[in-house]
Structure formats: structure tokens, C-alpha cells
């Protein structure tokens, strides 16, 4: 044992010693964890024999990252964070002093100029240079745009926070024309469809599930079943009976609500884990029925050739009286996508409107009361059976709407789209966003779905890791890491507090520490 001196050791060297020690341990642990996973790999050689490939270099990188990361965390990052005093524990954001140092006007102007310039001339520049340089260029463009937007958010944060919903709706309405202007008709396809429509579908689904999970506190792991009911309702009824989208949209919602009630009855007596497992089974049953009832659903082949939606009878096709021809525009599928964008936006806003309205109605309050304490509800004369059933069926109805929209957007549905993973993603968005908060959920959906879609855009990663590296395969990893980070940083989700539905003198939001997650 080394002699411990009684002279006061300076805090600095103490910290370094601790950081070194913890870094060493972290390296040791990661060595133990990864030596078999990463250090050794079984492979087949040319003679089809099983051989062990040794990858000590890669293992060393893993261990070094863990060790150095832990060292830096203990020695520099944590003291830095403490010095900065993350005072704003509510938002978890860095204090203004750090943010003002980070967001400076000259840098903002430079970033805006670079971002805008690259957006306009990026295409011509990247055509004349190597793909590697082009990938870096797009990275710089992305960073500049993100910095510019972040600065705008920072400087106008008070105004943005106060009017978030209104600004978000205006931004969403303006989104397609702006994208159209920036990227042209063909270029807009990706941004409107892959990002806009995709994110909004998940926003709507998560808002629908929020009624069941966030408000009524009923953990539903089979929500995707209602999405499937809606999608197949539209797909089958339109192909067998030729009914139009506008008739089938409400019908799909009603059918899904009906199935929500069917699910609701047997699970009324169940709580917590038991309820979750039965709903999970229900989701799988619906999927298996879709796979095996081949005469009607065509099984795993799915239903294809689903008719498109029309706008007041105007079709989005190349015909003489199609949308493009009537408007005197060149034919492009982009207009249909933009139409779909506005359609799902309207549906999502309807979901939000109804959710907000319902929360202030006796039924919505009863849902929240049910989440807080079911026995107390019954002692107040609230029929918890009908209350739970309405929560299930109204949540399911919005799932059904979203499902029929999904069918009309894809033009093709198959049971593969309705696997448990989808339910898990929707539930994850609700939990990440903060159960019960519409804004939090919308942000979570944008970050999660948009983030995973952005991975496809990371052509730079291909340049680094090689051509056969497909970043989108890592989206689930990203999803998992994001969930862990958010849950450590904000255990109640992005928006953990709850807005009261009525107030006497002033509206004070209720801290997440008082609300319950529900138990049934």
C-alpha cells in the first residue's frame, strides 16, 4: 500500500487520479465484455471450415474508447457541467451563459450564408468534385442549416415557447411550398413524403395511442392492430366494393373503434403487466389472421393496387382531367404526395383537436382520474367499464384513420407493416414525448422518425465505413440510445408536466412527480 500523506492533496490531482482509476476500470470492464464478442469472430474459410478470426485491433479501439471516454467524463466533462451549473433543471438545458457563447451573431450569419449558398449551388458544386468531397460538403450544409435553425430557436425562444402550437402549424402548412421552391418538383418528393408524411403518420398514431396510454393509463402494446384494421378496411372495401376514400376513411375509423371495444371487453378486469400482455397478443392475433385468411386478405402477398384518394373527385393521374392537367402543371407524382401531406396534417390536427377537447370534457377528466386512482373513481360514481371502453375505442379510431391513410399512401398493404415493432415504436414515442403531452409527443415523433430517416441521408458515413455500410440498418440502435439518453436526462419524457384542464385563478402546470403512469 502506498503511504497516504496527511498533507491536503489538491482537488485537481485528486480528480485526475480518480479519473485515471475509473477510466482504467471502464477499460477493464469493456475488455471483459467485448473480448469474446469483438476480439474473436467465427467465420468460414474457403474450405467451408469454421475458423476463428482474431480482431485485436478492433477490440483495442473499443477498450480505448471506453477508457478514454470515462476518463474524459470524470476529469473534464462532469466538472465542466458542474461549473456551468445546469441550473435549469426543468428544461435540462444548458444555462444562458453557455448558450450565448455558443450562439453568436457573426457565426449565425456565416452559417446562414454557407447553408443557403450550399443549398442553392450545392448541386452544381458536388457534380464537379469527387463523391467524398461531395459528402463532406453535404455534411457542412447540414451542420450550417442545423446551427442556423438552432440559433433562430435560441434567440426567439421565449416567443417560440409561448406560441409553439401556432408556429408549428404555420410551419407545417408552409412546408410543402417551401420545399418545392428549394428543391424543385422531383427533389421535393423525398422531403415531403419520406420526412413529412412519414413523421406525421407517426405523430397521429402516437397521439391516438396517447389517449389510451397517456390519459387513461392503460398500457396497450397491440396498438398497431387498429392501424392494421384501418389499413385493411380501406384496402379490402375499396378493392372489393370500389368505395371511395372519403367514405372509407370514417368507416375505417368506426371499424377500428369497434375492434377497440372488442379488445376492451376481455381486458377490462386486467391491470398493468397482464393488460400489456393481452393487448400484445391481440396485436399478434390480428396480424396472424391477416396472414392466414388468404381468401380475403391474400395472406403475405398483401393487397396491392389500392385506389388513390381524390380531391373533390379530381384524380392525381396523367389523365386529361387529372390534377396536373387542370392546374396546367407538368405531370408529377409530387403533387399527390403534397396532397397526402396536407391530408395527414389535417387528420393529425383533427386528432389533436379532439384530444384537447376531450381532455376538458367529463370523459377526458374521468380518463385521467382513472389513471390516477381507479378505486376512487368508482367511489365517485364513475362507471369505469364504459370509461375504459371509450378510451380504447377512441384511441383505436384514430389508429384506424391513420391506417386507412397508410393504405391510400402506399397503395399496398401487407401484414409485414403491422408487426409488434411498430407498436413498440409508437409506444416509445408516447413515452419519450411525455405521456399526455401532445407537443412533447410530436417533438419525439419528429426526432425519432425524422432522425432515423436522416440516417439515410448520411452519405458521409458511407465514405468513412465503406460502400457496403448501410446507415439505416443502425436506426434501431439509434432509437435505443436516444431512449436511454432521454430517460436518464428526463425520466418523464420531453414534456413531463401536465397542463390542468380547468383553473380558478392561474393555470399552473402539474409537475410530473405528482402524476401517475396508471396501473391498468
Amino acid at each position, binding site marked *: 500500500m502506498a503511504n497516504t500523506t496527511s498533507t491536503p492533496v489538491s482537488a485537481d490531482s485528486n480528480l485526475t487520479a480518480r479519473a485515471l482509476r475509473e477510466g482504467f476500470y471502464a477499460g477493464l470492464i469493456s475488455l471483459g465484455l467485448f473480448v469474446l464478442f469483438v476480439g474473436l469472430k467465427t467465420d468460414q474459410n474457403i474450405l467451408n471450415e469454421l475458423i476463428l478470426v482474431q480482431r485485436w485491433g478492433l477490440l483495442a479501439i473499443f477498450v480505448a474508447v471506453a477508457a478514454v471516454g470515462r476518463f474524459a467524463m470524470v476529469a473534464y466533462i462532469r466538472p465542466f457541467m458542474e461549473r456551468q451549473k445546469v441550473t435549469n433543471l426543468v428544461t435540462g438545458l444548458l444555462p444562458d451563459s453557455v448558450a450565448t457563447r455558443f450562439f453568436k451573431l457573426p457565426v449565425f450569419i456565416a452559417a446562414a450564408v454557407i447553408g443557403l449558398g450550399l443549398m442553392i449551388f450545392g448541386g452544381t458544386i458536388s457534380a464537379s468534385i469527387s463523391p467524398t468531397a461531395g459528402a463532406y460538403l453535404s455534411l457542412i450544409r447540414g451542420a450550417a442549416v442545423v446551427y442556423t435553425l438552432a440559433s433562430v430557436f435560441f434567440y426567439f425562444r421565449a416567443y417560440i415557447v409561448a406560441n409553439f402550437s401556432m408556429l408549428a402549424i404555420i410551419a407545417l402548412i408552409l412546408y410543402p411550398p417551401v420545399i418545392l421552391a428549394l428543391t424543385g418538383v422531383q427533389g421535393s418528393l423525398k422531403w415531403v413524403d419520406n420526412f413529412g408524411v412519414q413523421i406525421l403518420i407517426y405523430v397521429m398514431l402516437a397521439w391516438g395511442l396517447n389517449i389510451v396510454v397517456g390519459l387513461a393509463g392503460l398500457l396497450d402494446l397491440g396498438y398497431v392492430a387498429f392501424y392494421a384494421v384501418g389499413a385493411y378496411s380501406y384496402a379490402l372495401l375499396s378493392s372489393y366494393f370500389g368505395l371511395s376514400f372519403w367514405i372509407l376513411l370514417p368507416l375505417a375509423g368506426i371499424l377500428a373503434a369497434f375492434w377497440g371495444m372488442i379488445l376492451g371487453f376481455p381486458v377490462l378486469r386486467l391491470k398493468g403487466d397482464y393488460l400489456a400482455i393481452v393487448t400484445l397478443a391481440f396485436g399478434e392475433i390480428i396480424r396472424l389472421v391477416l396472414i392466414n385468411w388468404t381468401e380475403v386478405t391474400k395472406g403475405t402477398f398483401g393487397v396491392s393496387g389500392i385506389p388513390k384518394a381524390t380531391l373533390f373527385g379530381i384524380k392525381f393521374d396523367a389523365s386529361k382531367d387529372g390534377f396536373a392537367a387542370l392546374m396546367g402543371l407538368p405531370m408529377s407524382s409530387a403533387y399527390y404526395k403534397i396532397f397526402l401531406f396536407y391530408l395527414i396534417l389535417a387528420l393529425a390536427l383533427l386528432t389533436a383537436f379532439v384530444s384537447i377537447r376531450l381532455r376538458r370534457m*367529463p370523459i377526458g377528466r374521468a380518463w*385521467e382520474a382513472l389513471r390516477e386512482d381507479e378505486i376512487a373513481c368508482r*367511489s*365517485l*360514481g364513475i362507471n369505469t367499464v364504459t370509461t375504459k371502453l371509450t378510451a380504447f375505442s377512441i384511441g383505436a379510431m384514430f389508429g384506424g384513420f391513420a391506417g386507412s391513410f397508410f393504405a391510400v399512401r402506399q397503395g399496398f398493404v401487407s401484414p409485414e407493416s403491422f408487426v409488434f415493432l411498430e407498436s413498440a415504436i409508437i409506444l416509445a414515442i408516447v413515452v419519450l414525448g411525455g405521456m399526455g403531452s401532445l407537443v412533447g409527443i410530436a417533438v419525439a415523433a419528429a426526432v425519432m422518425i425524422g432522425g432515423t430517416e436522416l440516417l439515410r441521408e448520411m452519405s458521409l458515413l458511407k465514405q468513412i465505413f465503406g460502400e457496403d455500410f448501410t446507415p439505416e440498418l443502425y436506426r434501431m440502435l439509434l432509437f435505443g440510445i436516444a431512449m436511454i439518453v432521454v430517460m436518464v436526462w428526463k425520466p418523464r419524457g420531453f414534456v413531463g408536466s401536465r397542463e390542468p384542464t380547468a383553473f380558478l385563478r392561474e393555470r399552473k402546470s402539474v409537475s410530473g412527480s405528482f402524476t401517475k403512469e396508471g396501473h391498468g
Partner: protein
Amino acid sequence: MMTKDPILKVDHLSMRFGGLMAINDLSFEAYRGDITALIGPNGAGKTTVFNCITGFYKPTMGMITMRQKAGKEFLLERMSDFEVNRDAKVARTFQNIRLFSGLTVLENLLVAQHNKLMMASGYTVLGLLGFPTYKKAAAQSIEQAKYWLDKANLTDRADDPAGDLPYGAQRRLEIARAMCTGPEFLCLDEPAAGLNPRESLALNELLRGIRSDTGTSILLIEHDMSVVMEISDHVVVLEYGQKISDGNPDHVKNDPKVIAAYLGVEDDEVEDVIAEVEGETGGAH
């Protein structure tokens, strides 16, 4: 003395949990406009009686009749828990407070007016469409909540989460919430448990106010004898699931059976008992 009008009649009530007879052939009456106290040592079956009256337990045997002011009678043992409140107008509180802690104080009182508001909102449909009947009913329900906030002295905390209130205020809120359902008969399970003397006093005020202002009859379980003797008109004493005494507070206070139940035995016998116990433990050593 004029004959009293019973609001609640419990006849030959028995409740068995497996081999345990929690209540054994219990009969008593609670009178309209009275504060009736149900007392007894721990484990006497008081809360079980409450749960039977309010529909949370189905009694093994017996009949519980609730007679409303208008003369309508309800057999509570046949009704489910929420119907007991909704139709028979019997409200209750819980021994371990059950508030909606994540809702504000005001919202707690609005949830209690659920059935009234559901009707006014046309089972949500008309309310969703913005019909004025619901708006009027919603405004009325806030007025009603304000009235009880004022009674329970909680107006200042109306917009705070219920879970944030101190213990005594939570007790008062639970009573106010039960009153917002518009009951004719209010069952309180240990309303004074854990209250300090000042809060107990405020509780007495509140209960007296409830009786005089709304005519609601009250049945309460209580251990705090200062509350029981102070405010109740009629006391029923239980021990081991059976009624051992029934009458006005003075009568019960001096009933030898009650004293024996609470203190075990008479004072002069205590020494004998101690000697007996010591003899036994001495033998064991």
C-alpha cells in the same frame, strides 16, 4: 321524543373471508340528519362494514337498505360500487387517502361531478360540438366546486396538484370531493386519522357545516374519541364483527362492555392478568 327516520338500515349483515367471519350478524340503523359514529378496536370489522355499504364488497348475508329523502329505497348489497354513489347517493372517503394526486384540487372536485356533466354534455357528443347546455353545466360545476373549496378552506390551493397538499388539507379535500357528488349519505373512514388537534377542530367544523347546510347524514369510523364524542349524535360499537353497544355518546361511554372492549378488563383485574402473564413467561425461561 319524536321517532327518528332511518336513512340507512343494516339488517343481519355478515361478511365471511374464507374462514374468517369479519362481520357476524350485524344490525344497526343510521338516522337522517344525524352524525353516526362506528367505533371499535382495531380489526373489529368497521372498514368491512363500510365496504359492504358502499358496494366494494358483496356481503355474504344480510340486507342494507338506503332510503332517500324522496322515499325511494335502494338495496345497496345488490348494487355495484359506482351505482351506490351514482343512484343511491351514498358517497365515501378512504382510510388511506385516495385523491387524484396528479390532478389539481379543482379538477378533483370536477371529476366528482362526472355523472351530472356527462348528462349535460350529451354523453360527450353535444359537448364536443360545443352545445351551450354543456358550457352552462360546466360553469355551474365550477361554482359548485368553489362552494366546497370555500367550505373546506382550500380556495387558495385550488390550482395546485392535490398530491402537493399537506395531509390535513388532503383529508378535507377528499371530503369535499365526496360532497361534490351530491350525496344524501356520507361515509367517512377515519377522517381524523393523522390530524393534529387544530386540524381535527377544523374537520369538526366542516362536518357540522355539512350536516347543517346540506342535511347530509354522516356515518363515520373514527378512533379519535375527541372527534367522536364531540360531534356524533349516535354511536355504534363493534367488536369482533359484532355490535356490542348502540346509543348516544354518553350511553356508550359508560357501557361496561365498551370499556371492557377498549381496555380489556376492569382496572382491579389488570393486576391479576399481569401476574398471569408473568407467571407464564417465567415458566418458559
